[in-house]
Protein backbone atom coordinates (compact mmCIF):
# COMPACT_ATOMS: atom_id res chain seq x y z
CA UNK A 1 0.00 0.00 0.00
CA UNK A 2 1.15 3.51 -0.66
CA UNK A 3 0.77 6.32 1.84
CA UNK A 4 -2.24 8.30 0.89
CA UNK A 5 -3.84 10.95 3.08
CA UNK A 6 -7.35 12.19 2.41
CA UNK A 7 -7.82 15.83 3.38
CA UNK A 8 -10.29 18.65 3.15
CA UNK A 9 -7.91 21.57 3.54
CA UNK A 10 -8.75 25.04 2.27
CA UNK A 11 -5.76 26.37 0.33
CA UNK A 12 -4.67 29.51 -1.52
CA UNK A 13 -3.73 28.92 -5.13
CA UNK A 14 -2.00 30.98 -7.80
CA UNK A 15 -3.66 30.03 -11.06
CA UNK A 16 -2.90 30.96 -14.65
CA UNK A 17 -5.76 31.11 -17.13
CA UNK A 18 -4.43 30.63 -20.63
CA UNK A 19 -4.70 28.26 -23.56
CA UNK A 20 -3.83 24.68 -24.44
CA UNK A 21 -4.64 21.35 -22.85
CA UNK A 22 -5.21 22.94 -19.44
CA UNK A 23 -6.53 26.48 -19.91
CA UNK A 24 -6.73 26.81 -16.11
CA UNK A 25 -3.39 25.92 -14.50
CA UNK A 26 -2.73 25.97 -10.76
CA UNK A 27 0.97 26.81 -10.53
CA UNK A 28 1.57 27.27 -6.81
CA UNK A 29 -0.43 26.74 -3.64
CA UNK A 30 -0.11 27.56 0.04
CA UNK A 31 -1.27 25.08 2.66
CA UNK A 32 -2.84 26.08 5.98
CA UNK A 33 0.54 25.40 7.65
CA UNK A 34 2.05 28.15 5.48
CA UNK A 35 4.06 25.68 3.39
CA UNK A 36 4.14 26.63 -0.27
CA UNK A 37 4.16 24.01 -3.00
CA UNK A 38 5.10 24.58 -6.60
CA UNK A 39 3.17 22.54 -9.15
CA UNK A 40 5.58 21.03 -11.66
CA UNK A 41 3.04 19.01 -13.64
CA UNK A 42 -0.72 18.69 -13.97
CA UNK A 43 -1.39 14.99 -14.47
CA UNK A 44 -5.07 15.22 -15.33
CA UNK A 45 -7.89 17.70 -14.89
CA UNK A 46 -11.41 16.36 -14.89
CA UNK A 47 -14.79 17.76 -13.93
CA UNK A 48 -16.95 16.20 -11.26
CA UNK A 49 -20.59 17.16 -11.12
CA UNK A 50 -22.00 17.25 -7.61
CA UNK A 51 -25.67 17.89 -8.22
CA UNK A 52 -25.67 21.13 -10.16
CA UNK A 53 -22.31 22.20 -8.76
CA UNK A 54 -19.27 21.71 -10.94
CA UNK A 55 -16.04 20.83 -9.17
CA UNK A 56 -12.86 20.82 -11.26
CA UNK A 57 -10.41 18.23 -10.01
CA UNK A 58 -6.71 18.70 -10.68
CA UNK A 59 -4.31 15.84 -10.00
CA UNK A 60 -0.91 17.53 -9.77
CA UNK A 61 2.62 16.90 -8.54
CA UNK A 62 5.54 18.90 -7.23
CA UNK A 63 7.91 16.06 -8.11
CA UNK A 64 7.98 14.75 -4.53
CA UNK A 65 4.32 13.94 -3.92
CA UNK A 66 1.07 13.78 -5.83
CA UNK A 67 -1.74 16.11 -4.77
CA UNK A 68 -5.41 16.46 -5.60
CA UNK A 69 -6.72 20.01 -5.77
CA UNK A 70 -10.43 20.72 -6.15
CA UNK A 71 -11.81 23.98 -7.47
CA UNK A 72 -15.47 24.66 -6.72
CA UNK A 73 -16.63 26.78 -9.65
CA UNK A 74 -19.74 27.95 -7.78
CA UNK A 75 -18.05 29.04 -4.55
CA UNK A 76 -14.70 29.89 -6.20
CA UNK A 77 -12.78 28.02 -3.53
CA UNK A 78 -9.81 25.65 -3.67
CA UNK A 79 -9.33 22.63 -1.44
CA UNK A 80 -6.49 20.14 -1.12
CA UNK A 81 -8.24 16.78 -0.82
CA UNK A 82 -5.45 14.23 -1.16
CA UNK A 83 -1.74 13.91 -0.69
CA UNK A 84 0.10 10.76 -1.75
CA UNK A 85 3.79 10.08 -1.35
CA UNK A 86 6.34 7.48 -0.20
CA UNK A 87 5.68 5.12 -3.06
CA UNK A 88 8.10 2.68 -1.46
Amino acid at each position, binding site marked *: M*NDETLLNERIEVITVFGEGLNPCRPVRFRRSSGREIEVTEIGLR*HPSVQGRRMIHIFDVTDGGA*DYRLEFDSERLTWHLTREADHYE
Partner: protein
Amino acid sequence: MSKAYNTDRPLVMHIDLNSCFATVEQQSRPLLRGRPVAVVNRRTENTAIITASYEAKKYGVKVGMRFKEAKLLVPDIIAVETDPAKYRFVYHKMMDMMKTYSPHVVMKSIDEGVIDFKHATAQMRARDLRDIGEEIKQRMKDEIGSAMRCNVGISTNRFLAKTAAGLHKPDGLDVITHENLRETFATMELTDLTGIAKHNEHRLNAVGIETPLQFLDASAEILHKMVFKSVCGEEWHQRLRGYEVDDREFDLKTVGRQYVLESPHLSSEKILQRLHHLAESVGAKLRSQNKVARGVFVYVKTYERTYWHARRMCEMPFYSNQAIYALASQLFAGAPGHIREIGVSCYELGDDLDPQLSLFGDKLATEKQLVAAIDELNGRYGDRTIHAADTLGTGMYVKQKIPFGSTRYL
Protein backbone atom coordinates in the same frame (compact mmCIF):
# COMPACT_ATOMS: atom_id res chain seq x y z
CA MET B 1 -22.74 -18.42 -47.52
CA SER B 2 -19.29 -17.42 -48.72
CA LYS B 3 -16.33 -19.68 -48.00
CA ALA B 4 -13.84 -17.05 -49.12
CA TYR B 5 -12.24 -14.41 -46.95
CA ASN B 6 -13.55 -10.86 -47.06
CA THR B 7 -11.32 -9.03 -49.55
CA ASP B 8 -12.87 -5.58 -48.99
CA ARG B 9 -10.70 -2.70 -47.89
CA PRO B 10 -10.36 -2.79 -44.07
CA LEU B 11 -12.48 0.09 -42.80
CA VAL B 12 -13.21 -0.89 -39.21
CA MET B 13 -10.91 0.48 -36.51
CA HIS B 14 -10.85 -0.82 -32.94
CA ILE B 15 -9.28 1.38 -30.27
CA ASP B 16 -8.41 -0.08 -26.91
CA LEU B 17 -6.84 1.87 -24.05
CA ASN B 18 -3.90 -0.07 -22.62
CA SER B 19 -4.60 -1.23 -19.05
CA CYS B 20 -7.09 1.60 -19.02
CA PHE B 21 -7.59 2.43 -15.35
CA ALA B 22 -3.95 1.91 -14.44
CA THR B 23 -2.86 4.10 -17.36
CA VAL B 24 -5.30 6.84 -16.36
CA GLU B 25 -3.98 6.68 -12.79
CA GLN B 26 -0.40 6.91 -14.07
CA GLN B 27 -1.44 9.86 -16.21
CA SER B 28 -3.08 11.69 -13.34
CA ARG B 29 -0.43 10.88 -10.73
CA PRO B 30 2.93 11.40 -12.39
CA LEU B 31 4.86 9.70 -9.57
CA LEU B 32 3.16 6.40 -10.42
CA ARG B 33 4.58 6.34 -13.95
CA GLY B 34 6.97 3.51 -14.64
CA ARG B 35 5.93 1.78 -11.41
CA PRO B 36 3.89 -1.39 -10.85
CA VAL B 37 0.35 -0.25 -10.05
CA ALA B 38 -2.77 -2.24 -9.21
CA VAL B 39 -6.16 -0.57 -9.40
CA VAL B 40 -8.50 -2.00 -6.76
CA ASN B 41 -11.97 -1.26 -5.43
CA ARG B 42 -10.82 -1.31 -1.83
CA ARG B 43 -7.37 -0.82 -0.40
CA THR B 44 -7.18 -4.08 1.51
CA GLU B 45 -4.90 -7.09 1.16
CA ASN B 46 -7.73 -9.41 0.08
CA THR B 47 -9.18 -7.18 -2.60
CA ALA B 48 -9.18 -8.36 -6.21
CA ILE B 49 -7.16 -6.44 -8.80
CA ILE B 50 -9.29 -4.70 -11.42
CA THR B 51 -6.45 -3.52 -13.64
CA ALA B 52 -2.70 -3.74 -13.39
CA SER B 53 -0.19 -1.50 -15.10
CA TYR B 54 2.16 -3.03 -17.67
CA GLU B 55 5.00 -2.73 -15.16
CA ALA B 56 3.03 -5.07 -12.86
CA LYS B 57 1.80 -7.36 -15.65
CA LYS B 58 5.42 -7.93 -16.63
CA TYR B 59 5.90 -9.86 -13.37
CA GLY B 60 2.77 -11.98 -13.83
CA VAL B 61 0.19 -9.82 -12.04
CA LYS B 62 -3.21 -10.52 -13.57
CA VAL B 63 -6.68 -9.04 -13.43
CA GLY B 64 -8.75 -10.77 -10.75
CA MET B 65 -5.70 -11.75 -8.67
CA ARG B 66 -5.83 -10.93 -4.93
CA PHE B 67 -3.66 -7.97 -4.01
CA LYS B 68 -1.73 -10.00 -1.42
CA GLU B 69 -0.86 -12.57 -4.12
CA ALA B 70 0.32 -9.79 -6.41
CA LYS B 71 2.52 -8.49 -3.59
CA LEU B 72 4.31 -11.82 -3.46
CA LEU B 73 5.19 -11.38 -7.14
CA VAL B 74 5.95 -7.66 -6.95
CA PRO B 75 6.64 -6.53 -3.37
CA ASP B 76 6.66 -2.83 -4.27
CA ILE B 77 3.33 -2.89 -6.14
CA ILE B 78 1.18 0.15 -5.35
CA ALA B 79 -2.57 -0.17 -4.76
CA VAL B 80 -4.70 2.68 -6.03
CA GLU B 81 -8.43 2.86 -5.42
CA THR B 82 -10.74 3.20 -8.42
CA ASP B 83 -11.88 6.68 -9.38
CA PRO B 84 -14.86 6.22 -11.75
CA ALA B 85 -15.38 9.95 -12.43
CA LYS B 86 -11.87 10.17 -13.86
CA TYR B 87 -12.34 7.12 -16.09
CA ARG B 88 -15.68 8.46 -17.32
CA PHE B 89 -13.95 11.73 -18.27
CA VAL B 90 -11.31 9.89 -20.31
CA TYR B 91 -14.03 7.72 -21.89
CA HIS B 92 -15.92 10.82 -23.06
CA LYS B 93 -12.73 12.47 -24.38
CA MET B 94 -11.91 9.29 -26.29
CA MET B 95 -15.43 9.03 -27.70
CA ASP B 96 -15.48 12.71 -28.76
CA MET B 97 -12.14 12.23 -30.49
CA MET B 98 -13.33 9.12 -32.33
CA LYS B 99 -16.48 10.88 -33.51
CA THR B 100 -14.38 13.46 -35.36
CA TYR B 101 -13.49 10.69 -37.84
CA SER B 102 -16.87 9.06 -38.47
CA PRO B 103 -20.41 9.47 -37.17
CA HIS B 104 -20.57 5.71 -36.75
CA VAL B 105 -18.76 5.15 -33.46
CA VAL B 106 -19.74 2.42 -31.03
CA MET B 107 -18.20 2.31 -27.57
CA LYS B 108 -17.95 -1.35 -26.57
CA SER B 109 -17.04 -0.64 -22.96
CA ILE B 110 -15.47 2.09 -20.83
CA ASP B 111 -12.04 1.50 -22.42
CA GLU B 112 -12.66 0.44 -26.00
CA GLY B 113 -14.59 1.57 -29.03
CA VAL B 114 -15.01 0.99 -32.75
CA ILE B 115 -14.95 3.50 -35.60
CA ASP B 116 -16.68 2.33 -38.76
CA PHE B 117 -15.17 4.28 -41.66
CA LYS B 118 -17.69 2.86 -44.12
CA HIS B 119 -19.96 5.67 -42.96
CA ALA B 120 -17.26 8.35 -42.90
CA THR B 121 -16.93 11.16 -45.45
CA ALA B 122 -15.24 10.38 -48.78
CA GLN B 123 -12.41 12.70 -47.77
CA MET B 124 -11.85 10.73 -44.56
CA ARG B 125 -12.09 7.38 -46.35
CA ALA B 126 -9.47 8.55 -48.82
CA ARG B 127 -6.91 8.69 -46.01
CA ASP B 128 -4.71 5.75 -45.02
CA LEU B 129 -6.26 4.27 -41.88
CA ARG B 130 -2.80 3.54 -40.47
CA ASP B 131 -2.11 7.28 -40.55
CA ILE B 132 -5.39 7.93 -38.79
CA GLY B 133 -4.48 5.30 -36.18
CA GLU B 134 -1.15 7.02 -35.52
CA GLU B 135 -2.92 10.38 -35.39
CA ILE B 136 -5.37 9.10 -32.77
CA LYS B 137 -2.49 7.80 -30.65
CA GLN B 138 -0.86 11.22 -30.77
CA ARG B 139 -4.13 13.02 -30.04
CA MET B 140 -4.60 10.85 -26.92
CA LYS B 141 -1.29 12.24 -25.68
CA ASP B 142 -2.01 15.82 -26.75
CA GLU B 143 -5.63 16.02 -25.63
CA ILE B 144 -5.63 13.82 -22.51
CA GLY B 145 -2.04 13.45 -21.37
CA SER B 146 1.44 12.36 -22.35
CA ALA B 147 1.24 8.99 -20.53
CA MET B 148 -1.82 7.82 -22.46
CA ARG B 149 -1.32 4.88 -24.80
CA CYS B 150 -3.73 2.86 -26.87
CA ASN B 151 -3.79 -0.13 -29.19
CA VAL B 152 -5.27 0.30 -32.61
CA GLY B 153 -6.52 -2.57 -34.75
CA ILE B 154 -7.85 -2.27 -38.30
CA SER B 155 -9.73 -4.85 -40.33
CA THR B 156 -12.89 -5.59 -42.27
CA ASN B 157 -15.06 -6.45 -39.26
CA ARG B 158 -15.20 -5.70 -35.56
CA PHE B 159 -13.92 -9.09 -34.48
CA LEU B 160 -10.74 -9.00 -36.57
CA ALA B 161 -10.18 -5.31 -35.75
CA LYS B 162 -10.26 -6.18 -32.02
CA THR B 163 -7.99 -9.16 -32.67
CA ALA B 164 -5.55 -6.84 -34.48
CA ALA B 165 -5.64 -4.39 -31.55
CA GLY B 166 -4.52 -7.17 -29.22
CA LEU B 167 -1.51 -8.32 -31.24
CA HIS B 168 1.15 -5.95 -29.96
CA LYS B 169 0.32 -4.58 -26.53
CA PRO B 170 1.01 -1.96 -25.35
CA ASP B 171 0.78 0.80 -27.93
CA GLY B 172 0.42 -1.42 -31.01
CA LEU B 173 -1.09 -0.70 -34.39
CA ASP B 174 -1.90 -3.67 -36.62
CA VAL B 175 -3.99 -4.38 -39.68
CA ILE B 176 -5.52 -7.77 -40.48
CA THR B 177 -6.53 -8.33 -44.11
CA HIS B 178 -7.41 -11.42 -46.12
CA GLU B 179 -3.73 -11.51 -47.07
CA ASN B 180 -2.25 -11.86 -43.57
CA LEU B 181 -5.21 -13.53 -41.85
CA ARG B 182 -3.75 -17.06 -41.88
CA GLU B 183 -0.31 -15.80 -40.92
CA THR B 184 -1.84 -13.94 -37.96
CA PHE B 185 -3.96 -16.87 -36.78
CA ALA B 186 -0.91 -19.15 -36.99
CA THR B 187 0.66 -17.22 -34.10
CA MET B 188 -2.37 -17.47 -31.82
CA GLU B 189 -4.07 -19.90 -29.44
CA LEU B 190 -7.82 -20.57 -29.58
CA THR B 191 -8.39 -18.73 -26.30
CA ASP B 192 -6.63 -15.64 -27.73
CA LEU B 193 -9.75 -15.16 -29.86
CA THR B 194 -12.37 -12.89 -28.31
CA GLY B 195 -15.38 -15.03 -27.41
CA ILE B 196 -13.43 -18.28 -27.10
CA ALA B 197 -12.87 -19.02 -23.45
CA LYS B 198 -12.44 -22.42 -21.79
CA HIS B 199 -15.99 -23.64 -22.43
CA ASN B 200 -15.93 -22.91 -26.18
CA GLU B 201 -12.37 -24.20 -26.42
CA HIS B 202 -13.56 -27.57 -25.05
CA ARG B 203 -16.40 -27.63 -27.59
CA LEU B 204 -13.94 -27.00 -30.42
CA ASN B 205 -11.40 -29.50 -29.07
CA ALA B 206 -14.14 -32.14 -28.95
CA VAL B 207 -14.30 -32.13 -32.78
CA GLY B 208 -10.54 -31.98 -33.24
CA ILE B 209 -10.18 -28.21 -33.62
CA GLU B 210 -7.11 -27.26 -31.62
CA THR B 211 -5.87 -24.06 -33.29
CA PRO B 212 -7.34 -20.85 -34.77
CA LEU B 213 -6.24 -22.01 -38.24
CA GLN B 214 -8.18 -25.27 -37.87
CA PHE B 215 -11.12 -23.19 -36.61
CA LEU B 216 -10.82 -21.02 -39.72
CA ASP B 217 -10.74 -24.06 -41.98
CA ALA B 218 -13.76 -25.74 -40.38
CA SER B 219 -16.91 -25.70 -42.48
CA ALA B 220 -19.98 -23.70 -41.45
CA GLU B 221 -21.87 -26.98 -41.26
CA ILE B 222 -19.50 -28.53 -38.74
CA LEU B 223 -19.46 -25.37 -36.65
CA HIS B 224 -23.26 -25.26 -36.69
CA LYS B 225 -24.12 -28.92 -36.23
CA MET B 226 -21.24 -30.25 -34.16
CA VAL B 227 -19.66 -27.38 -32.25
CA PHE B 228 -22.08 -24.58 -31.39
CA LYS B 229 -25.30 -26.43 -32.28
CA SER B 230 -26.94 -23.17 -33.29
CA VAL B 231 -26.74 -20.31 -35.76
CA CYS B 232 -23.67 -19.18 -33.77
CA GLY B 233 -21.72 -21.71 -35.84
CA GLU B 234 -22.45 -19.89 -39.12
CA GLU B 235 -21.73 -16.59 -37.42
CA TRP B 236 -18.29 -17.78 -36.32
CA HIS B 237 -17.64 -19.01 -39.85
CA GLN B 238 -18.38 -15.54 -41.21
CA ARG B 239 -16.70 -13.65 -38.36
CA LEU B 240 -13.39 -15.47 -38.75
CA ARG B 241 -13.39 -14.63 -42.49
CA GLY B 242 -13.78 -10.92 -41.88
CA TYR B 243 -17.50 -10.52 -42.55
CA GLU B 244 -19.46 -8.34 -40.13
CA VAL B 245 -21.91 -10.23 -37.93
CA ASP B 246 -21.55 -8.19 -34.74
CA ASP B 247 -23.03 -4.87 -35.84
CA ARG B 248 -26.11 -5.14 -33.66
CA GLU B 249 -27.36 -3.93 -30.32
CA PHE B 250 -28.89 -6.02 -27.60
CA ASP B 251 -31.87 -4.98 -25.51
CA LEU B 252 -31.37 -4.38 -21.83
CA LYS B 253 -32.47 -7.61 -20.12
CA THR B 254 -31.50 -7.08 -16.48
CA VAL B 255 -30.30 -4.29 -14.23
CA GLY B 256 -28.33 -5.30 -11.18
CA ARG B 257 -25.69 -4.53 -8.62
CA GLN B 258 -23.61 -6.67 -6.30
CA TYR B 259 -21.40 -6.05 -3.32
CA VAL B 260 -18.70 -8.01 -1.51
CA LEU B 261 -19.25 -7.37 2.21
CA GLU B 262 -16.45 -5.43 3.83
CA SER B 263 -16.32 -7.78 6.84
CA PRO B 264 -17.37 -11.36 7.63
CA HIS B 265 -18.74 -10.20 11.00
CA LEU B 266 -21.65 -7.97 9.93
CA SER B 267 -24.98 -8.39 11.69
CA SER B 268 -28.10 -9.33 9.68
CA GLU B 269 -29.35 -5.77 10.15
CA LYS B 270 -26.19 -4.30 8.60
CA ILE B 271 -26.33 -6.75 5.69
CA LEU B 272 -29.93 -5.70 5.05
CA GLN B 273 -28.84 -2.04 5.05
CA ARG B 274 -26.33 -2.85 2.32
CA LEU B 275 -29.00 -4.77 0.42
CA HIS B 276 -31.18 -1.69 0.67
CA HIS B 277 -28.34 0.45 -0.70
CA LEU B 278 -27.99 -1.93 -3.65
CA ALA B 279 -31.77 -1.80 -4.25
CA GLU B 280 -31.55 2.01 -4.37
CA SER B 281 -28.72 1.82 -6.91
CA VAL B 282 -30.64 -0.67 -9.03
CA GLY B 283 -33.76 1.52 -8.91
CA ALA B 284 -31.79 4.57 -10.07
CA LYS B 285 -30.18 2.58 -12.92
CA LEU B 286 -33.56 1.18 -13.98
CA ARG B 287 -35.21 4.59 -14.09
CA SER B 288 -32.23 6.17 -15.86
CA GLN B 289 -33.06 3.85 -18.79
CA ASN B 290 -36.81 4.66 -18.58
CA LYS B 291 -37.56 1.05 -17.76
CA VAL B 292 -39.86 -0.74 -15.35
CA ALA B 293 -39.36 -4.29 -14.08
CA ARG B 294 -41.58 -7.18 -13.13
CA GLY B 295 -39.08 -9.47 -11.48
CA VAL B 296 -36.52 -9.26 -8.68
CA PHE B 297 -33.61 -11.65 -8.20
CA VAL B 298 -31.32 -11.80 -5.18
CA TYR B 299 -28.25 -13.94 -4.63
CA VAL B 300 -25.77 -14.69 -1.90
CA LYS B 301 -22.28 -16.17 -2.01
CA THR B 302 -20.95 -17.50 1.27
CA TYR B 303 -17.45 -17.88 2.67
CA GLU B 304 -17.90 -21.64 2.19
CA ARG B 305 -18.18 -20.94 -1.57
CA THR B 306 -21.86 -21.90 -1.72
CA TYR B 307 -24.28 -20.00 -3.91
CA TRP B 308 -27.90 -19.25 -3.02
CA HIS B 309 -30.48 -17.33 -5.02
CA ALA B 310 -34.19 -16.55 -5.07
CA ARG B 311 -36.44 -14.73 -7.50
CA ARG B 312 -39.98 -13.45 -7.73
CA MET B 313 -42.15 -12.24 -10.57
CA CYS B 314 -44.98 -9.76 -10.01
CA GLU B 315 -48.08 -9.09 -12.08
CA MET B 316 -47.67 -5.33 -11.86
CA PRO B 317 -44.53 -3.59 -13.08
CA PHE B 318 -42.53 -1.56 -10.57
CA TYR B 319 -39.61 0.87 -10.60
CA SER B 320 -39.33 2.51 -7.18
CA ASN B 321 -36.46 1.81 -4.76
CA GLN B 322 -39.06 1.03 -2.14
CA ALA B 323 -40.75 -1.65 -4.26
CA ILE B 324 -37.44 -3.24 -5.26
CA TYR B 325 -36.20 -3.35 -1.67
CA ALA B 326 -39.52 -4.67 -0.33
CA LEU B 327 -39.36 -7.62 -2.74
CA ALA B 328 -35.61 -8.17 -2.32
CA SER B 329 -35.76 -8.15 1.48
CA GLN B 330 -38.65 -10.65 1.49
CA LEU B 331 -36.64 -12.99 -0.70
CA PHE B 332 -33.52 -12.39 1.37
CA ALA B 333 -35.23 -13.78 4.48
CA GLY B 334 -34.38 -17.25 3.16
CA ALA B 335 -30.68 -16.54 2.62
CA PRO B 336 -28.03 -18.65 4.36
CA GLY B 337 -25.53 -17.28 6.91
CA HIS B 338 -21.81 -16.48 6.73
CA ILE B 339 -22.37 -14.25 3.71
CA ARG B 340 -19.49 -12.96 1.61
CA GLU B 341 -21.28 -11.33 -1.34
CA ILE B 342 -24.82 -10.15 -2.05
CA GLY B 343 -26.53 -9.04 -5.25
CA VAL B 344 -29.87 -7.68 -6.44
CA SER B 345 -31.18 -7.59 -10.02
CA CYS B 346 -34.38 -6.59 -11.72
CA TYR B 347 -35.53 -8.56 -14.77
CA GLU B 348 -38.48 -8.81 -17.16
CA LEU B 349 -37.88 -5.20 -18.09
CA GLY B 350 -40.33 -3.16 -20.10
CA ASP B 351 -40.72 0.42 -21.18
CA ASP B 352 -42.08 2.86 -18.65
CA LEU B 353 -45.88 2.63 -18.75
CA ASP B 354 -48.60 5.18 -18.28
CA PRO B 355 -49.99 4.42 -14.81
CA GLN B 356 -53.39 5.79 -15.77
CA LEU B 357 -53.98 2.67 -17.83
CA SER B 358 -53.99 0.50 -14.75
CA LEU B 359 -56.75 -0.20 -12.27
CA PHE B 360 -54.40 1.10 -9.60
CA GLY B 361 -53.72 4.24 -11.60
CA ASP B 362 -54.03 6.79 -8.81
CA LYS B 363 -51.74 4.93 -6.47
CA LEU B 364 -49.14 4.37 -9.17
CA ALA B 365 -49.35 7.97 -10.34
CA THR B 366 -48.71 9.22 -6.79
CA GLU B 367 -45.74 6.88 -6.40
CA LYS B 368 -44.41 8.00 -9.77
CA GLN B 369 -44.56 11.66 -8.77
CA LEU B 370 -42.79 10.95 -5.50
CA VAL B 371 -40.05 8.93 -7.18
CA ALA B 372 -39.63 11.60 -9.88
CA ALA B 373 -39.31 14.30 -7.19
CA ILE B 374 -36.62 12.30 -5.34
CA ASP B 375 -34.73 11.64 -8.58
CA GLU B 376 -34.87 15.34 -9.44
CA LEU B 377 -33.52 16.34 -6.03
CA ASN B 378 -30.71 13.80 -6.32
CA GLY B 379 -29.98 15.09 -9.81
CA ARG B 380 -29.84 18.70 -8.59
CA TYR B 381 -27.90 18.26 -5.36
CA GLY B 382 -25.92 15.09 -6.04
CA ASP B 383 -26.40 11.32 -5.84
CA ARG B 384 -27.87 10.02 -2.62
CA THR B 385 -28.93 13.41 -1.29
CA ILE B 386 -32.26 11.73 -0.54
CA HIS B 387 -32.13 8.08 0.36
CA ALA B 388 -33.61 5.61 2.83
CA ALA B 389 -32.73 6.38 6.46
CA ASP B 390 -31.26 2.96 7.09
CA THR B 391 -28.68 3.40 4.33
CA LEU B 392 -27.31 6.53 5.99
CA GLY B 393 -23.96 4.96 6.86
CA THR B 394 -23.56 2.56 3.94
CA GLY B 395 -22.24 4.99 1.33
CA MET B 396 -18.67 4.80 2.63
CA TYR B 397 -18.64 1.03 1.99
CA VAL B 398 -20.91 0.46 -1.01
CA LYS B 399 -19.19 2.82 -3.38
CA GLN B 400 -19.88 3.62 -6.97
CA LYS B 401 -18.49 0.91 -9.23
CA ILE B 402 -17.14 0.98 -12.72
CA PRO B 403 -19.66 -0.26 -15.24
CA PHE B 404 -17.72 -2.96 -17.11
CA GLY B 405 -19.22 -4.33 -20.28
CA SER B 406 -21.90 -1.71 -20.75
CA THR B 407 -21.70 1.93 -21.66
CA ARG B 408 -25.38 2.59 -20.89
CA TYR B 409 -24.70 4.27 -17.57
CA LEU B 410 -21.59 6.30 -18.48
